[in-house]
């Protein structure tokens, strides 16, 4: 409780911690502690537990079933989940789609989709990126042409995370090819079971196959599943990307990984001595812990400040959290890789053959080491997705420093 600056927040944290300890399945906790990502069923089960408690949708207004927490409370919630460790409520449903439907959706859309999103009865994925439009959404090429009360969608999405689990996708499409790049874009909800839609996994260097290409070949989407006005999708995308960016620092997760690093370094021996006896390693861990502590306060300051902004207005300083957060997650993953050492080098002959979630693992790799090299490799993406580090720096230079 020593991390909160008022007694009320400390009590709030205690309540969360108590609930999580009582309800988080032990086997899930243990797998996450070792460094494995949570699986599909894990995520669903846990979100339903949270939803039953009213905590699955922290940022939604109470009228839509949210708990009515402040931004700082939401941070503490994420922090306690990371500490457990436990999965977060599925971001696609809760921090992306939900606020969009609440702000721009019709009452019908809200009634149909929000309760199911909260309970993870639907699993949503995000169809923004395309092969030619990574950080540059204006280059979007997927088209939707109107045919009566349907759109016919043609194109290709990529980097679609967890699309293999999803039954719905929210999606940007170009509805007016003649308009300027940022205009002429609309925001559609697409049933993944639609004829003409297919998903192909992209294998990543960590052995995972969690991101996908989604092909849309003459996919028919009812006009009633467009959110907001036609050709106003750019505005919705900006709103969505500006939402809840505080969580992107993932301070809690990094802190948990550092705790794990300390624990492992105390167990692993090299020539008879626990690694943690090495002063150089101890300095390295301590330096990271200091940076994480600082980022936690930085995040707290920025989230408090953001609460004073008009709704929908994004604080460009959130890029600081993204940048530093990515750096620290990467340094923690690198530390764990170095602690794993030679024992972390093996993978199963086909990492996709015998692990349901595509996790590398073979019985020649000890349980504690198996997820660490893949986690390091995946961590390289933290400074790429959601806008590369270089793009974040240019945003800060322009919008904060005025350069």
């Amino acid at each position, binding site marked *: 409780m020593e991390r*909160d*600056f*008022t007694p009320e*927040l400390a009590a709030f944290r205690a309540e969360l911690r108590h609930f999580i300890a009582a309800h988080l399945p032990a086997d899930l906790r243990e797998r996450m502690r070792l460094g494995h990502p949570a699986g599909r069923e894990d995520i669903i089960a846990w979100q339903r537990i949270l939803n039953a408690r009213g905590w699955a949708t922290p940022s939604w207004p109470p009228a839509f079933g949210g708990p009515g927490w*402040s931004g*700082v409370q939401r941070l503490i919630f994420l922090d306690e989940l990371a500490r457990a460790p436990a999965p977060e409520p599925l971001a696609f449903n809760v921090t992306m789609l939900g606020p969009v439907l609440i702000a721009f959706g019709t009452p019908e859309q809200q009634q149909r989709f929000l309760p199911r999103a909260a309970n993870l009865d639907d699993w949503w994925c995000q169809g923004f990126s395309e092969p030619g439009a990574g950080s540059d959404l204006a280059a979007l090429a997927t088209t939707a042409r109107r045919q009566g009360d349907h759109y016919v969608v043609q194109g290709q999405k990529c980097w679609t995370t967890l699309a293999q689990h999803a039954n719905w996708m929210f999606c940007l499409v170009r509805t007016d090819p003649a308009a300027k790049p940022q205009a002429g874009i609309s925001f559609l909800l697409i049933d993944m079971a639609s004829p003409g839609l297919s998903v192909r996994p992209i294998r990543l260097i960590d052995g995972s196959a969690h991101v996908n290409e989604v092909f849309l070949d003459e996919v028919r989407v009812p006009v009633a599943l467009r959110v907001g006005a036609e050709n106003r999708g750019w505005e919705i995308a900006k709103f969505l990307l500006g939402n809840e960016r505080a969580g992107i620092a993932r301070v809690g997760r990094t802190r948990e990984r550092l705790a794990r690093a300390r624990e492992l370094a105390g167990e692993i021996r090299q020539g008879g001595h626990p690694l943690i006896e090495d*002063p150089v390693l*101890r*300095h390295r*861990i*301590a*330096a990271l*812990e*200091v*940076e994480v*502590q*600082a*980022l*936690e*306060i*930085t995040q*707290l*300051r920025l989230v*408090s400040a953001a*609460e004073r902004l008009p709704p929908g207005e994004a604080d460009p*300083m959130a890029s*600081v959290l993204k*940048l*530093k957060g990515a750096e620290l997650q990467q340094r923690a993953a690198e530390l764990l890789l170095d602690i794993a050492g030679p024992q972390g080098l093996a993978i199963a002959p086909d990492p996709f053959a015998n692990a349901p979630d595509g996790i590398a693992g073979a019985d020649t790799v000890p349980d504690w080491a198996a997820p660490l090299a893949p986690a390091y490799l995946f961590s390289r993406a933290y400074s790429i997705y959601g806008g590369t580090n*270089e793009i974040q*720096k*240019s945003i*800060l*230079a322009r919008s*904060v*420093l*005025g*350069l």
Partner: protein
Amino acid sequence: MTGLSPTEEQRLLADAVSRLLGDHYDFAARRRHAAAPEGWSRDIWARFADLGLLGLPFAEADGGFGGGGMDLLVVMEAFGRALVLEPYLASVVLAGGAVRRAGDAAQRAAILPRIAAGRLVMGFAHAEPAARHRLRHVETGAHRDGSAWRLNGAKTLVLNGDSAEMLVVSARLSGMAEDPDGLGLFLLDPAAQGVSRRGYTLLYGSRACELGLDDARADAALGAPGGAGPVIAQVIDEAIAALAAEAVGAMAAAQALTIEHLKTRRQFGRPIGQNQALQHKAVDMLIALEQARSMALLAAFRSGPAAWREVAAAKVQIGTAARLIGEGAVQLHGGIGMTEEYAVGHYLRRLMVIEQLFGDTACHLGRLAG
């Protein structure tokens, strides 16, 4: 909301200090203050007293305002921006802190109101040459002489000690050099026999002295002699928190100068700030500044004996950021940043000095690494 934001009172305090310094402490005025015989300005000191700054952390009963760490932070950050030379840390935070925490009621009543009124300037003599960054290493000895004490040894880096009118000196009554027990704090008249002082200027312009103690007579001890270890540790922690805030002010000012330079200096036909590589370097500095500010806040907010980890972590974060920002500010200025007549190099030097005071980055990181 978070408990970390400044209160309305603190905002008013910040405004008042900034206004005073804006009026009387620009870079040219600072040069004049530095050239005064003591290396700082008695006139400015009186203004600080008028504003209530010199009694800020003292209890109201002792003529102060009962300010906490966050109040001190506001003042020190403004001092950092203006590169203030006056002995605030030495007299109010260090020596004043020792008196208010360890002194008895009579000592507090005799000393603190005079500090607060600007009528007594004090110094705090603790560091020793052989200790280097080991803060609890004390070889200077104390023994009883009737109702008084005799001190023998040498102290170094006594901040503004050359102009102090009374000194608080740490000395050992028993134990080995690193023993946490057996320490005392003594009130010493620097004019007493056996006391020698040799003043010098620190790299960035403020003053300090070395102190020789050759059977020097101290009339009084603060608190129970032998048990001063915890008070010394806490006073130093408060000084580190204050220095962290000062460093944040200095870094913010260096950063602001740099951004201004990037916008105005032209090369190859355009402002150099249009170079993406320089922009990104400035962003690295911005991030370091925000991280440092966070830890200065944390160190100021936490007080009490259990806070050593937060204070050490703040010193580490400040030290790391100070190098990155201090060096980066000079680099982005180019040649002009290397010159004595331009302010940015003064910030770099002030930050260097802060990093070396009360344990450097490696030392505090080592404490945290255990």
